[in-house]
């Protein structure tokens, strides 16, 4: 299935940071990231942990083309994200990336099914009926098929987060970036979300970068990055040493 999607082979570098620095603020700058370099390979499940303010979310936003580095480069499939304009980065996000946030960020006026369909419709590679069928199939795979017609407000927190995962993966992204996806869930729902992620990486061949505070969930990733004060202080690859 993955070959048909044109996805990269396992081990191939899909996302790369080269000496990325990020400063925030006006006259008085605060350095959030200090020349971070890291490579993400295809079909990796990478966890990113660290204390609050360590720079993990900032790094995730830079990897996801949601932010620009103050210096250094972020490459997605060899394309320098910093060289793209707003529309170029928007198109790239829509075509290659999927996002899951701590707060599900579903659109309240739209049904669950429509929330999943909207990124596909914007990408324009599927007809409306095809997008609908694919979104429904994705929801069913996650056990949400019966909730397709409901509005997000009618779902539990765990269900909403699973819908946001469905939205992220239904558009056939190369990489899914998740920012504390379990941070707002109870243990049972958080476990359910982790199960979905593990299944997507294992069975669908997805590349996943997940920011989390939960050490237990981070330990379930194939590769664990630990950040502190804007630096990656640990890069533990359970399948072998990293070159990033």
């Amino acid at each position, binding site marked *: 299935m993955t070959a048909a999607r044109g996805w990269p082979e396992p081990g191939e570098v899909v996302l790369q940071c080269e000496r990325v620095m990020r400063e925030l603020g006006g006259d008085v700058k605060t350095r959030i990231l200090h020349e971070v370099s890291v490579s993400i390979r295809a079909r990796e499940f990478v966890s990113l942990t660290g204390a609050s303010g360590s720079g993990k*979310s900032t790094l995730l*936003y830079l990897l*996801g083309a*949601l*932010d620009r580095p103050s210096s250094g480069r972020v490459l997605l499939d060899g394309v320098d994200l910093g060289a793209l304009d*707003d*529309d170029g980065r*928007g*198109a790239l*996000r*829509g*075509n290659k990336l*999927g*996002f899951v*946030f701590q707060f599900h*960020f*579903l*659109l*309240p*006026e*739209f049904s669950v099914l*429509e929330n999943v369909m*909207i*990124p596909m*419709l*914007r*990408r*324009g590679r599927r007809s*409306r009926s095809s997008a609908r069928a694919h979104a429904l199939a994705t929801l069913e795979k996650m056990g949400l098929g019966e909730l397709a017609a409901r509005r997000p407000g009618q779902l539990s927190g765990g269900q909403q987060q699973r819908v946001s995962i469905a*939205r992220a993966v239904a*558009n056939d992204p190369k990489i899914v970036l998740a*920012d504390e996806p379990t941070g707002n869930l109870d243990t049972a729902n958080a476990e359910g979300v982790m199960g979905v992620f593990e299944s997507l990486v294992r069975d669908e061949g997805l590349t996943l970068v997940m920011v989390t505070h939960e050490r237990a969930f981070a330990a379930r990733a194939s590769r664990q990055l630990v950040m502190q004060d804007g630096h990656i202080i640990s890069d533990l690859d359970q399948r072998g040493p990293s070159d990033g």
Partner: protein
Amino acid sequence: MPRVVLFIALRQLWARKLLNSIAVLGVMLGVLTLIAINAIMQGFQVKFLDNILKISPHVVLLDKQLRPAPPILARFLRRPVVAEVAHETPSDRQLRINRPLELLRSIEALPGVVAAAGSLNGSAVLVFGPKQYPVDMRGIEPVSQDRVTQVSSYVTTGSYRALTGSDGIIVGAGIAQRIGVRVGDRVSLGSPLGQTLSLKVVGIFDAGIPPVDATRVYVSLRDAQAILGKPDVVGRVEVRLATPARAADVATQLEAVFGYDAESWQESNANFLALFKQQNSIIGFVIGAILAVGGFGILAIQIMIVLQKTRDIAILRSVGFRRTDILTAFLLQGAIIALVGAAVGDLSGHYLVRFLGTMKTKQESLVRSETFLVHDDPKMYVYGALFALVVGLLASFIPAWRGSRVEPVDVLRGQIG
């Protein structure tokens, strides 16, 4: 524009029905006012101009020569001469149109001219029994004059054709009412410089313009010449055109060709036209202000929605929507609010105009009418919709622009939203 942008715009509009209905109401009131006020203003103006154009000629050639003919001696010698005519009497200087029949034929041959008729006007006093009444006398050739101003269509009692014989007079309905004359009565009509004739009332006309109906009488040209003491004089040539709007051009052309002062109907009614223009400007300003208020309604509501939807904008941007998509979605919402408001305003405006047209009222000023004068102009519905659309787009541009500038990362970091 991707269809999904329209889908999102429509759904978000529908999700805030109450708020957006208020914005629609603002636009609707603006368009309704535009249509209703214009219908009332135009109703009066169109009726007045319509009546004026029926009862008045499109162009009048007056007896004032712009380039007096050179003296006979100069014409004979073909060079300027100094000439003085001693003992010239006032009657020798009498104003007139020379060789009127030839001139009429020449004018009627001009392109765009439908008909022309010679006439003589003057002030006279109408006497009926003990009552005396000053009138504006029009001496006409009934057949040719009717082709120019269609007086016959306004004759409500008696016969216009009866004027063709001598000693007949057609009086305005206002005059008849004031001095109590009826068809068949004999009246006297005279002026200080000519004769007083005893005339038989052969008709009463009602042009629907009180100032005309209360002052004007028609007699034959020959009788007018006798009453004014101007035998064989034609004082003016009245012209009817195929296109009344061309009257000013034709007047200029007639002046150039025939050397007499010519006046278009626009020039004759310049005071009224200037007044109408001023009225229209004021009304335009008022309507513009009302629609602008509707626009501010859209602006306020859209700004509120953009502020509320910052998080949704961020999520849309993060899943691949461009800045232009966000801009387009909010502009679409503004345009839809404006168009729905315009459609409802057009529809309710149409019914309001119809209702106003049936309202009983009595107008006796420049035009006479039993009902409210309205003119249901289809153009106004289109103008209303276009104006509303422009206002809606302008009003939603600022919030749309603001929405399109939302940086998803700022929302995700919790700095806004």
